[in-house]
């Protein structure tokens, strides 16, 4: 993947973020083109254009209220639930428009989401993981057993969970619950995992485990993560997008963003001079 970095990034011209460059490339998982999002009359996202590459971790950073979580939610149409939301522009997933060409149920199967607060169902560990596959119509226990074990292993929580599969998930620690939620997301075989500040409620050890997990998972999944933790963004992401007041200010390789940001606003924000 790495050799393609820069070809669609327009890395020499991230300053102006020329929206006309959002063209399809085989490695693009998402192509976002001139995306506007309104909450009523308030414009929360302004002409966002960016390509999100397959099997990469893309971090979205910016101050509170900058639109990064709104943008993340748009990628699996979580904003549909808000009747005041109006969206213009397009978001292509594997070259299909997520608003017009993909059923929202399928979209959310392909594009999973992990939230800030771990939110396991008040069910057993096993049933948490099996929930999605059951909804998809898988009922055979042998098949579900395989999915549960595979998902828990992928989420690096199998060893801690294997002897208590039928106990309540709510008895797990916060860090374990968050990995369980990641396992639950993986069980439906998504292509993309969206993470909205997945470690902000966790202690440093649990945070490290999630970060390690993200680096493992990116071999097989495209990951988009919202984080307020600058070091986290620099540790785990390949690309970083900086949002401010609904604008995408700068989008580039994480190394460039954190060593040599092109836009003074990005520099001000990441160095803490902002505001």
């Amino acid at each position, binding site marked *: 993947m790495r050799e393609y970095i820069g070809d669609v990034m327009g890395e020499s011209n991230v300053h102006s973020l020329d929206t006309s460059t959002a063209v399809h490339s085989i490695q693009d998982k998402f192509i976002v083109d001139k995306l506007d999002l309104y909450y009523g009359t308030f414009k929360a996202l302004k002409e966002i254009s960016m390509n999100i590459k397959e099997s990469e971790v893309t971090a979205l950073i910016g101050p509170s209220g900058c639109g990064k979580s709104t943008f993340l939610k748009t990628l699996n149409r979580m904003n549909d639930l808000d009747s005041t939301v109006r969206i213009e522009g397009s978001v292509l997933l594997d070259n299909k428009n997520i608003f017009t060409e993909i059923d929202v149920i399928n979209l959310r199967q392909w594009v999973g989401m992990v939230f800030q607060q771990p939110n396991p169902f008040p069910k057993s560990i096993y049933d948490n993981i099996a929930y999605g596959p059951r909804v998809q119509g898988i009922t055979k226990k042998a098949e579900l057993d395989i999915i549960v074990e595979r998902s828990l292993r992928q989420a690096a929580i199998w060893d801690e969970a294997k002897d208590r599969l039928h106990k309540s998930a709510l008895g797990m620690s916060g860090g374990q619950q968050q990995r369980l939620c990641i396992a639950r997301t993986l069980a439906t075989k998504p292509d993309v995992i969206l993470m909205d500040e997945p470690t902000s409620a966790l202690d440093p050890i649990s945070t490290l485990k999630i970060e390690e997990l993200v680096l493992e998972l990116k071999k097989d999944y495209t990951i988009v993560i919202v984080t307020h933790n*600058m*070091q986290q963004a*620099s540790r785990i992401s390949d690309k970083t997008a900086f949002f401010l007041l609904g604008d995408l200010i700068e989008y580039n390789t994480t190394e460039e963003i*954190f*060593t*040599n*940001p092109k836009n003074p606003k990005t*520099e001000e924000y*990441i*160095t*803490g*001079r902002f505001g």
Partner: protein
Amino acid sequence: MRKHFDEELLQVKSEFITMASVVDKSLLQAITALEKNDPVLARDVIELEPKILDFERLIERRCMLILLYQQPVASDLRMVSAIMKMISELRHLSNQATEISELIITNHTKIHFGEVEELVEMGQKVRRMTYDAIHAFSVSDERLARQVVSQDDEVDNLFTNAKKMIVKGIKTDAFKPGTGVDALMISKHMEKIGDYSVAMAAWTIYMITNEPVETILASSTNSNV
């Protein structure tokens, strides 16, 4: 948070400039000692070295603490990493000034190196480059830093000329073999001083522009070929 961090950056920068001034002073003294064949001045240079080493340790520790506590990024990170590299260049540079001073002390009754025009010329040249490299850092002057980098080949040429002249002098007995070899070593130390000031200037350019140091040095060599 940022106010405190800014103060820390300012402090480490100002300590670096103080260290650089001491090194520049020691180099100036070494060159003057050579020009005047003054062993007392040369001894002063040697006495400055422990102080320079202390500065290096202090600034290195300060930078490590900034990395640890502030986790700087972007231009802050470049400044801290440039300073960490440049203190080591400064120490190497001061070692060369000490070596020159020791050779002056050893030989001052046998030869007046200040009468060897090539050595005086080289000494003045590399001292100017060192001064400019330090100044370029302190005022973030990319143009001046590039000017220092571009002078690398000039120093190399001066060294080649000095070497030829000294070898010829040894052959024609203008130099006694011992003093001739020491004159050659002085010219080599001066050439290395030129290299260290070029490296400092390259780190300053990196700090300002994020251009990799190897690219800066390579482009300078190419442009001078």
